[in-house]
């Protein structure tokens, strides 16, 4: 019975979301991207690192639908495998940022006072450095690799999550069930985990969805400047970077991965927009 209730909350959100056609399309695009990432070895016609010097910079053909890059590698296969790297960039870095941000935000918001002041002022300093610059420096310090780029992006985007969580916790903290929990001897840890976070997490869902998009974009940018995925592993940003030298003669080499980045970021943002409306109880009818 309990499972049924949980399901009905989800179906309620889905019912609201369905009204926004763009958000539904975005959701399916994202599901498609995830499937492509998981099934990449089955979908890709060639291994991503298989070179064929004879086909260097070859145009589209029946065997190679989107053509070949400078080293004669199949661009379509590289795009398909690249989905893995790009999605990992977006999802894992947001997961890191959200976990740290939720923790900081919940503690700062719940305890208030000097804990709140101290952590928020530290975040002010943190945010004074532009997020992308911070990620670039972190990635550069830790050394260029996909894993380090993800960590750098995650750390760089913490403040946004922490602030949203804190604001949301501040409203939950005043509720009487928090006081009721204190009156039945619940400790701070239990109150934060069982009463505060579940009720304050709502606004984070939108932020997380949108965050995936912006981290895919930032991750591609890191790869573009060589701090992300390392060759020969394909990543959309890195592919654009590699296509840079032949941009005039073969603009499509940069265009395809660019379109992929655009579609995935757009899908994340549209879904985030849709979710924000679907989760807002004031818009219910």
């Amino acid at each position: 019975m309990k499972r049924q209730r949980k399901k009905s909350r989800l179906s309620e959100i889905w019912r609201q979301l369905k009204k926004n056609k763009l958000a539904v399309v975005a959701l399916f695009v994202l599901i498609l991207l995830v499937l492509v990432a998981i099934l990449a070895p089955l979908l890709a016609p060639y291994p991503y690192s298989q070179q064929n010097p004879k086909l260097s910079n070859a145009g589209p053909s029946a065997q190679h639908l989107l053509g070949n890059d400078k080293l004669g590698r199949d661009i379509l296969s590289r795009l398909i495998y690249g989905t893995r790297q790009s999605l990992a960039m977006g999802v894992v870095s947001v997961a890191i940022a959200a976990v740290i941000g939720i923790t900081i935000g919940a503690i700062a918001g719940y305890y208030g006072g000097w804990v709140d002041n101290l952590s928020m002022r530290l975040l002010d300093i943190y945010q004074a450095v532009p997020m992308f610059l911070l990620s670039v420096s972190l990635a550069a310090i830790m050394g260029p690799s996909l894993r380090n780029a993800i960590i750098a992006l995650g750390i760089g985007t913490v403040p946004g999550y922490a602030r949203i969580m804190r604001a949301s916790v501040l409203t939950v903290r005043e509720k009487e069930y928090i006081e009721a929990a204190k009156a039945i001897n619940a400790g701070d840890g239990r109150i934060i985990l069982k009463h505060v976070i579940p009720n304050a997490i709502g606004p984070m869902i939108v932020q997380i969805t949108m965050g995936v998009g912006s981290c895919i974009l930032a991750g591609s940018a890191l790869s573009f400047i060589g701090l992300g995925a390392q060759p020969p592993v394909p990543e959309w940003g890195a592919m654009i970077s590699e296509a840079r030298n032949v941009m005039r003669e073969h603009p499509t080499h940069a265009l395809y991965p660019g379109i992929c980045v655009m579609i995935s970021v757009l899908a994340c943002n549209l879904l985030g927009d849709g979710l924000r409306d679907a989760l807002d109880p004031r818009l219910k009818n």
Partner: protein
Amino acid sequence: MTPLLEVRNLKKYFRVRAGLLHAVDDVSFTLDKGKTLGVVGESGCGKTTLGRTVLHLTEPTDGQIFFEGKDITSPTKNELRRLREDMQIIFQDPYSSLNPRMSVSETIMEPLILRGDMTKTEMFAEVRKLMDTVGIASRFENAYPHELDGGRRQRIGIARALALEPKFIVCDEPVSALDVSIQAQIINLMLDLQEERGLTYLFITHDLSVVKYISDDIMVMYLGQVVEKAPADELFANTLHPYSQALLSAIPIPSIRHKQERILLRGEITSPVNPEPGCRFMARCQYAAEECKQPQKLEESSPGHYVLCCRYKEINNL
């Protein structure tokens, strides 16, 4: 017999930008086991803060609290843990006093889990029993608060408070957010529980008809101070303080023939921040005189009847 609860000169001040806010100022009372003390007063008079301070949900600024003869003014962590099993609270707003993400049985079970002396099966059985006691059908076990009406929610709040088998319960306007018909049900439930379990209530409300029905003693508060305190019947028969008189005159009388004489208070409630030493009701009192600017003392007019007014004799022709 030692009273179950004794509060002596309790003070709770909040530091605000403009100065010190006197939420509870020098309140004393005793409360015997099985009795109900009604606390009435308008919003912002400190009655809620009084209840929360007694329960140590906020710490008192000054004064002493005794529970079963033991000083509990500044308990250690362990003492506070045990104390909270004896003292519980029922909240005003059943829409915000229940965690929307927890089902009925989870909510009622939480205090049992935290006390940690029962097995899972025992806890489930206890939850069923509590639900039965407060009159919620067991089919609502897995319901979430938003699926229930206000009366049922308030019953869940009562069940949660009863779970630890407390001796003393602070009822913070437990019925003011409910429909009148449901108010009666909840109040009767609380009276039944009091009788069965020998509970002691500190009943905070602004609804005078409710307080008359449920209380043994009544305490009228104004701006953090007790202005009048008496057994319920005595207070309604011989109202001495001008503020209590105005308050009581506001009770609607269900009769068309009876012409009601209402005392209408003029002016705004005085700020509780850095109040003057004199009578706090002076600015709105029709009997205000020069002597009211002096600090007031609680006087016993007849046994058990206290009033905080230097002119109460003149006003009431005593």
